């Protein structure tokens, strides 16, 4: 009787996740250091994960990258994958990478682990934002990666993200800040998911 071929037996994560977890790429090595042009950190330990990206950028192209994370296997693997994907990429393009893209490159993540992989791209964007700010180009890429969540009032994921950054922590506060869901209310499910996700990331 063998159950080693059953899906339930397979390692909790895909072989690609396993590889990136056991041999993560571009991890910051404190002994070697890393000269970088920008740095971004997001996450909070209360929720169990935190992520930091360091970028070396030349002519708006990411030439090298290092990262650190306090997080689970999913967080480590997805950040490792992200760090590989963005090498050689224009910062404008890198700015629009979504957690779903990374999860796909990893061969998928378990449903309840998706939220562990949402920090990498946010840390990356934070680093790019810092880079742009330092060069007087603040906000240059804003609006390039927005998704409309509330069609009635044209409220986007970025509006929700901003509201959370400004202090919204629950649905009432989000509604007070954005008026989201006050017309048809059809967006509430998705909006609450995003709220939860952003509170996890920025709500320290």
């Amino acid at each position: 009787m063998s159950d080693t071929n059953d899906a339930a037996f397979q390692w909790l994560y895909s072989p690609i996740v396993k590889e990136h977890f056991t041999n993560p790429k571009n991890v910051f090595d404190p002994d070697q250091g890393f000269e970088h042009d920008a740095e971004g950190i997001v996450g909070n330990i209360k929720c169990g994960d935190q992520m930091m990206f360091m970028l070396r950028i030349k002519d708006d192209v990411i030439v090298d990258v290092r990262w650190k994370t306090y997080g689970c296997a999913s967080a480590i693997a997805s950040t490792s994958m992200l760090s590989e994907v963005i090498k050689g990429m224009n910062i404008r393009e890198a700015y629009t990478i979504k957690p779903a893209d990374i999860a796909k490159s990893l061969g998928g993540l378990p449903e309840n682990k998706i939220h562990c992989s949402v920090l990498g791209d946010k840390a990356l964007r934070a680093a790019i934002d810092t880079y742009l700010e330092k060069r007087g180009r603040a906000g240059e890429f804003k609006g390039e990666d927005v998704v409309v969540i509330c069609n009635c009032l044209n409220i986007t994921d970025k509006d929700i993200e901003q509201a959370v950054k400004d202090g919204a922590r629950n649905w009432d506060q989000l509604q007070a800040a954005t008026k989201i869901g006050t017309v048809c209310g059809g967006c509430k499910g998705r909006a609450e998911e995003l709220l939860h996700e952003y509170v996890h990331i920025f709500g320290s």
Partner: protein
Amino acid sequence: MDKRFVYMDYNATTPLREEVKAAMIEDFEVYANASSMHEAGRRAYARVDRARSHVASLIGAKTPAEIVFTSGGSESNNTVFNTMYDLGRQENGKFVTKGPRRKIITTAIEHPCVLNSAHRLADEGFPVVFLGVDDLGRIDISDLERELDPARSEGGPTLLVSVMTANNEIGTIQDMEAIAALAKAAGAYVHTDAVQAAGKIHVDASAWGVDYLTLSCHKIYGPKGIGALYVRKGAPILPLIRGGHQEAGIRAGTYNNQGILGFGLAAELALREQPDYESRLRGLRNRFRDAVLASVPDVRVNGHPTKVLPNTIDISFPGAEGEAILLSLDLEGIEVSTGSACASGSLEPSHVLMATGVGPQLAHGSIRFSMGKYTTEEDVAYVLEKLPPIIKRLRRMSTVPSTIEA
């Protein structure tokens, strides 16, 4: 050392021991319904009765009649809380039973089946108090005294005090004798979940003076799906599962002959081996603790230093995240559990560790090593070889310093 398989998750469940497995397989020949009046039925019932005596002896029951077989710990705990619901509920604005006793006192570190049963009573309007614990995981007896005194606390006189004998995560053992004495003096019933304690430390329901005690068979090297509830003679109990007249009408359902037989044998062996088990495991555990403290910097051992289960050691590795540690150990063949939120499917880390006040970082970075009967010195040496580099690797890539928060 060569790669080996090291199971250190005995508090989650234990392997079925060979003697028990063999006895159960033999018993599968006995197919008669133990409730049947004919000879085959009576033979089957005799086996149930023998098993009941062994389970009674394991926990110091005065008579085997004080043991009710159930499907496991969760059912036993639910049966007690459901009985309290019936004792304390109101009908047409009047208490069903005499006296207005409705208050339930339990702790913040109970197993989810007690916590959720208590929350359900709270939802039904019962006053429910969750006692906090100190940094070592012990309840403060003076907190209990205050909560039992209607003049000094809310909720009126207490109906039930439910405190686990020993905690599954950090292993801390409560002073059940003192807790039961106070509760009895205040006229309350006393329940203890002894699922993790039985077989590991001396358990004596009669000496402690508790009214109810919960047991599970699969934690003592017996099969899953069978457990028991000790009900002190004279203590009220009402069926959770209604039907036939099995178990004196307290628990309906055709007898699980093989499960019960396996439980009886597992209990008999556990009782006989308990003193040796305790001294051997405590030695192994303490040597492991000392070696981890010597080989990994900045760690915190959670739970009580001495009033702790002999097989359980919960350690926080600040700077490293628990699920990543668990899966790294898993890749080396070492099986443990963690209090990290990432392993629980929620965003909340271990409620037990949080109740001890260690803070989220230490809770997320915690690993529970629970050893058992089959754990060897070689197993411990293997874990001691694999663990330090794993912690070092994860800490090196961490954004969080490995220092311990005050």
